[in-house]
């Protein structure tokens, strides 16, 4: 969680002002570090998280840039049927002659898009929902939180499958369905953080200076709660990817001719002995995405935790 004493520090601006003046007054200077720099430094010390971030960025580049440049399209039929991986088809081909590398890249794009949309949508809605509930308290809090409790009691997979079965098919509709069930989790986290922040002195100061409720929420509370919320969002991205692939595997998610990593695994499950490449590569990509996002989230959690002392920042 960011330091409440410096809630308004611009995140990127170098701290030139006080430093230059101090230089004249003091024998030596200590460069002041912004909140962002502190967090960044701590994060960079976390080797596994940094490595995961690099792998994740490479995966994203591969999916979008590689997918656009690759000689085969994801729906394109090639004359090679059921080929083992080769230089021409790095991940082999399926029985219809579709290039699996192109398919996996397309599936990765779809999975990432769904995950990012889910994270964005549910984080924004959940944060505002939880912040408003926590800030105003009383009846507002009770009503808003009972609504999110209700959403939490709905069986996720069943409701998502039901809605996706009847309304789904395209990747963004699937995202809306998943996000419509996930925002409630975020609202709980956001409310919890806001409840503790609300009692801090700087909020009292803002109130005393006559700031409006909206200004306090969006200028003071939300930015300070952002640390926990970002960590939560990374976990959400990983869960959303797993839920989407599960839905697609069961036949309720993204529909052919478009493809997703879940569909690819589902199509390949009977071909595991004869054409294992069809099964392993999409599964490997799901694991790689979810794993790296989890590690990045772990690194962020450590970096944003003001109590952690392992790395001197």
């Amino acid at each position, binding site marked *: 969680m960011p330091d409440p004493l410096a809630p308004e520090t611009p995140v990127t601006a170098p701290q030139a002002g006080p430093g230059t003046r101090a230089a004249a007054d003091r024998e030596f200077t200590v460069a002041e570090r912004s909140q962002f720099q502190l967090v960044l430094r701590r994060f960079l010390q976390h080797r596994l998280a940094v490595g995961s971030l690099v792998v994740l960025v490479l995966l994203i580049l591969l999916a979008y840039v590689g997918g656009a440049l690759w000689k085969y399209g994801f729906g394109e039929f090639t004359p090679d049927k059921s080929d083992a991986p080769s230089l021409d088809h790095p991940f082999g081909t399926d029985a219809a002659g579709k290039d699996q590398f192109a398919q996996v890249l397309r599936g990765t794009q779809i999975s990432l898009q769904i995950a990012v949309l889910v994270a964005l949508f549910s984080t924004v809605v959940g944060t505002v929902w939880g912040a408003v509930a926590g800030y105003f308290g009383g009846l507002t809090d009770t009503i808003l939180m009972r609504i999110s*409790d*209700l959403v939490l*009691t*709905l*069986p*996720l*997979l*069943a*409701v998502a*499958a*039901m*809605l996706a*079965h*009847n*309304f789904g098919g395209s990747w963004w509709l699937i995202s809306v369905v998943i996000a419509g069930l996930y925002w409630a989790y975020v609202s709980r986290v956001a409310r919890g953080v806001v409840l503790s922040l609300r009692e801090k002195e700087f909020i009292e100061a803002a109130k005393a200076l006559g700031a409006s409720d909206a200004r306090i929420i969006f200028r003071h509370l939300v930015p300070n709660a952002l640390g926990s919320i970002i960590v939560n969002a990374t976990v959400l991205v*990983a869960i959303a990817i*797993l839920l989407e*692939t*599960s839905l697609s*595997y*069961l*036949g*309720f998610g993204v529909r052919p001719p478009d493809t997703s990593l*879940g569909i690819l*695994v*589902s199509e390949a*499950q009977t071909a*595991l*002995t004869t054409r294992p490449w069809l*099964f392993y590569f999409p*599964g490997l990509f*799901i*694991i*790689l*995405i*979810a*794993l790296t996002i*989890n*590690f990045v989230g772990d690194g962020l959690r450590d970096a944003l935790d003001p109590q952690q002392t392992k790395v001197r920042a």
Partner: protein
Amino acid sequence: MLAFAVRRIAVSLPILLISTFIVFMLASLSGNPLSPLLTRNPPPPPESIALEAQRLRLDHPILERYWMWLTGLFRGDFGPSVQSNLDIGAETAGRFMVTMRLIAVAMILALVLAVVVGVISAVKQYSKTDYTATFLGFLFLAMPAFWLAILLKQAGIDFNNAVDEQVIYTIGDSSVPLPQGFGAQVADIAGHMVLPTISLALISYASWSRYQRSSMLEVMNSDYVRLARAKGLSRRRVMIKHALRNALIPLTTVTALDLASIISGAVLTESVFQWRGMGDLLLNAIRTDDVYVVMAWLLVTATVVIVFNLLADLLYAVLDPRIRYA
């Protein structure tokens, strides 16, 4: 304690009621159970469509349908299914037993694994064992349930092929027909359970062992454990009798809360291993817009979740005598 349990159940009932209402609305409004009839070629006579609509209570307004369903429950009537000869109550009861034995055994397996691995990781913090366990935990967390299940199923098939005999069952929840004799039947069902249980357990074990590790670490650094050590009790005794008991408390909550996601995991596992359990029931019902079957599924799973959460709360008091429910 009894008063507490009663109060908890009383609080759960309205939540269950509203939750069934929402799902009923979603299920009824999102699909049309008559669509297979309407798209049939040649089209069936309008009278039979009207008759089917009447049988499925579609001639009533939606709120009335919900009320009919709710009041019917007290008479043991779960409503009509799209499959005209299906008794939803009996079907659900039979499938519930199939799924519960999968979930129950998988949870016990996952808990034992999680506690053992979590405690070892905590006691040997930052050792090679700890790092390996951590990495495996993250790996299982990132692994889709169905992918792991397919992989295990294939391993079972490969093993059978290697020994040229059906040793591990990879399809179905039991043999059809069941072998004669009680012992043979138990062996058959147990044989079918091996792979699905392992794949379901591994998915939950991953996050639970993380919880167990961190709560164990916290307890190990507490004053009363240090005191017990200072009094001269052996390390082993302190860890097991004093530390572990308290470190189990967070896990009970997490286990109860995770039950809903285990049920989802069971849906996927059943789908891979072609079990005729609750998951199969749900998936078919969703595919055919069979509203009342979805409702029966929801009712059963929601009740299980509520009961488990209650049990977890009561277990709290057993594990930690300081907690009293007045």
